């Protein structure tokens, strides 16, 4: 988002400039006049027909062809002072990878991406580019329509993976230093990749039985196929990263225990694994889920393939999903795919304030999702068996903007009505998971349960312990988590190189 735009460092500027000045870039720029570039229309991402895709879990977007990608890349003006890079939380050298695509050097484009982003196939799919790199694209200023940077990122990463030519960069000699990464989500995977490339021995400790964090339990197959995630995780393994699944730091071992085992630097990326509820009557009825539970059952546990997989999930006639973010869109589109006759978004503000990506809202509409906007549930009604059967809703008006900058919803008295539902998914946000804060003595925590860090270094108050992603932000995006991770990894590298080997300094381990 705009407030996340940052000044590039002098080194980053010099790096971009050096690429910009290269002969091939100059020639490529000259080869097509600016007017001809701006005249090309943006390539629409090809997608499967709505009536077909809303019955299965296969990916919605198909991806650009080689020709489409080169044509799209040709639209990029290759600015001398590229704003897109400032809009990217991990400062990808966007002009370079886009121009490599235009030149037909697709593998090099992928490698260029991977210099700054270990997970391009994922970011190309789930980043909110329209409010980051693409928002500040010069072409958007000139013509109103930005270069499809996200689609191109996805193209390059998919091309590399599809060709089986995944490049493992030369690794420096091992430093002999051990780093522990807590959580195999977007931030943890990024830290692990960066540290491994710097020669450190990295172990990721993951509580669930599969890696990916929100990428595996939260984001559905139709938006991010598991095979893509698996390929990205395999890439990290090939960099030498060890991943220990089913290991709950805080319970199986504390940070102090791991310190005693020789880990010297730690990254806490344990995420926003604590679902929020509205605390309204009837919320614990059977059939009322948190989005985390609903999506985890379907994605991680494969409930869409019940009974071939043992984990069930409620299949509804009418599903109501509360909320207007990407998680709400993922939940409602999942409910539709599982066979709901009606799948309804219930959101308390208007379309303008919806935090979900435009593309996701648009896809949901195409797939037959209903939207009841300016509406909030105020209670749920159950049947004799304690199962949800209806919800009472209230209409809302909009007042002045609140702290989030969005207009505040105001209940309209007397507007209550009842709607029959047999499934409710509460997708109103998450808070930081409390396990690590509770089990790490002395770790400084903010009032929302978030781990507190120095934002310049991502360092917590404990020596050698860093944090990033939703455990400090409380519920943000994949790419912001990765941005935190890149900063943390660079600082952890400095810490590891400066630190003397020896026992931990935090006193005795907490266990029995």
């Amino acid at each position: 988002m705009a407030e996340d735009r940052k000044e590039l460092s002098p080194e980053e500027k010099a790096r971009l400039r050096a690429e910009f000045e290269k002969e091939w870039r100059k020639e490529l720029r000259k080869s097509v006049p600016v007017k001809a570039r701006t005249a090309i229309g943006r390539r629409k991402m090809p997608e499967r027909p709505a009536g077909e895709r809303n019955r299965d879990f296969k990916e919605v977007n198909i991806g650009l062809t080689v020709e489409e990608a080169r044509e799209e890349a040709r639209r990029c003006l290759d600015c001398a002072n590229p704003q897109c890079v400032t809009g990217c939380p991990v400062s990808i050298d966007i002009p370079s990878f886009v121009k490599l695509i235009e030149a037909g050097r697709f593998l090099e484009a992928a490698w260029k991406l991977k210099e700054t982003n270990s997970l391009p196939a994922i970011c190309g799919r789930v980043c909110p580019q329209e409010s980051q790199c693409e928002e500040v694209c010069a072409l958007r200023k000139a013509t109103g329509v930005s270069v499809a940077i996200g689609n191109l990122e996805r193209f390059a990463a998919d091309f590399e993976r599809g060709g089986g030519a995944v490049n493992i960069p030369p690794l420096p000699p091992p430093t002999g230093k051990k780093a522990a990464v807590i959580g195999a989500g977007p931030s943890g995977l990024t830290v692990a990749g960066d540290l491994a490339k710097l020669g450190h021995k990295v172990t990721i400790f993951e509580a669930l039985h599969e890696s990916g964090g929100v990428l595996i339990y939260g984001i559905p197959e139709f938006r991010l196929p598991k095979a893509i995630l698996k390929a990205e995780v395999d890439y990290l393994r090939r960099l030498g990263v060890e991943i220990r699944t089913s290991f709950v730091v805080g319970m199986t071992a504390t940070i102090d225990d791991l310190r005693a085992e020789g880990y010297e630097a730690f990254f806490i990326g344990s995420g926003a694994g604590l679902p929020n509820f509205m605390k309204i009557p009837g919320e614990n009825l059977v059939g009322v889920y948190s989005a985390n539970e609903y999506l985890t059952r379907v994605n991680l546990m494969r409930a869409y393939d019940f009974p071939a997989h043992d984990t069930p999930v409620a299949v509804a006639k009418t599903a109501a999903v509360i909320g207007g973010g990407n998680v709400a869109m993922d939940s409602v589109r999942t409910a539709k795919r599982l066979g709901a006759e009606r799948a309804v978004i219930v959101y308390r503000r208007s379309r303008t304030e919806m935090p979900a990506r435009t593309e996701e809202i648009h896809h949901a509409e195409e797939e037959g999702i209903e939207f009841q906007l300016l509406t909030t549930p105020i209670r749920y009604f159950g049947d004799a068996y304690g199962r949800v059967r209806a919800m009472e809703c209230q209409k809302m008006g909009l007042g002045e903007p609140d702290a989030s900058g969005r207009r505040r919803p105001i209940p309209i008295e007397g507007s209550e009505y009842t709607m029959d539902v047999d499934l409710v998914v509460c997708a109103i946000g998450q808070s930081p998971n409390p396990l690590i804060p509770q089990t790490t003595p002395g770790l400084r925590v903010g009032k929302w349960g978030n781990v507190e860090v120095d934002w310049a270094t991502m360092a917590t108050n404990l020596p050698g312990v860093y944090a990033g992603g939703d455990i400090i932000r409380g519920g943000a995006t994949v790419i912001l988590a990765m941005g935190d991770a890149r900063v943390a990894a660079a600082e952890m590298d400095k810490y590891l190189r400066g630190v003397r080997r020896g026992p931990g300094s935090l006193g005795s381990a907490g266990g029995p």
Partner: protein
Amino acid sequence: MPIILDRRRLVPNLHLIEVHAPEVARKCRPGQFVIIMPDEKGERIPLSVADWDAARGSVTAVFLVVGTSTRKLAALKAGDEVPVFVGPLGRASEIAPFGTVVLAAGCFGIGALWPVARALKAAGNKVIALIDAKAEYLVYWKDRYVSVCDKVLFSARDDALDSKDFIPKPLEELLKAEAPVARVIAVGCTYLMYASSRATKPLGIKTIVSLNPIMVDGTGMCGACRCTAAGKTKFACVDGPDFDGHTVDWDELFARRKSYVEDEVRSLCRYEETELP
């Protein structure tokens, strides 16, 4: 993947499983639980720890066969591997010198309460176990209880066990005979915990129950296990599993435990008819 060291039927439908999990074994405390998956397609099932051996690096749980995943678990044998065995999870039971403590144990709870009995005795309590079972042939680990408890009684309709009734009546009689009782800890099926709590409430005896709602991740991430205690929504996996039985919303727990009954039956029938060798 974690290796199974032992899997044995203790009594009909109740099995013991001992898994090699040295890190979990090192950290286990009474009242905690683990999550196990029988195979890649299985559910994540929470099981109370029934014993552990840090030297052998093993953790033991006792489980009741209720659905497909527990049916699969019951078919595993020593040497097999399970894809997931994670823990210990949840808060440990409170262990302190309370005075006289009555343990009401039934079903898998006989296993789950064993480490609690041992720890309470070591903490200097007078420990009385009331084991609830339909009949003598369904009682297991009697020797273990006899070895640490001051008294072991049975509630059953079985002359062999010198008992004519189930909980709550024998519990009420026991509490009267042993007064003052400082605390009751009830672990077993939801009904046993509910009935024990109801019996002790008028007597004002603090009663701890180990709640057994459906769970998925077991780390507070999903909220499947939410229950109401003292008027507040709690997550049994991280706020519990132990709660004050007098404050639990039992109707809600009974309903939520039945969330997937039809699915579970369908899944188990399909498994037994099509996949079971």
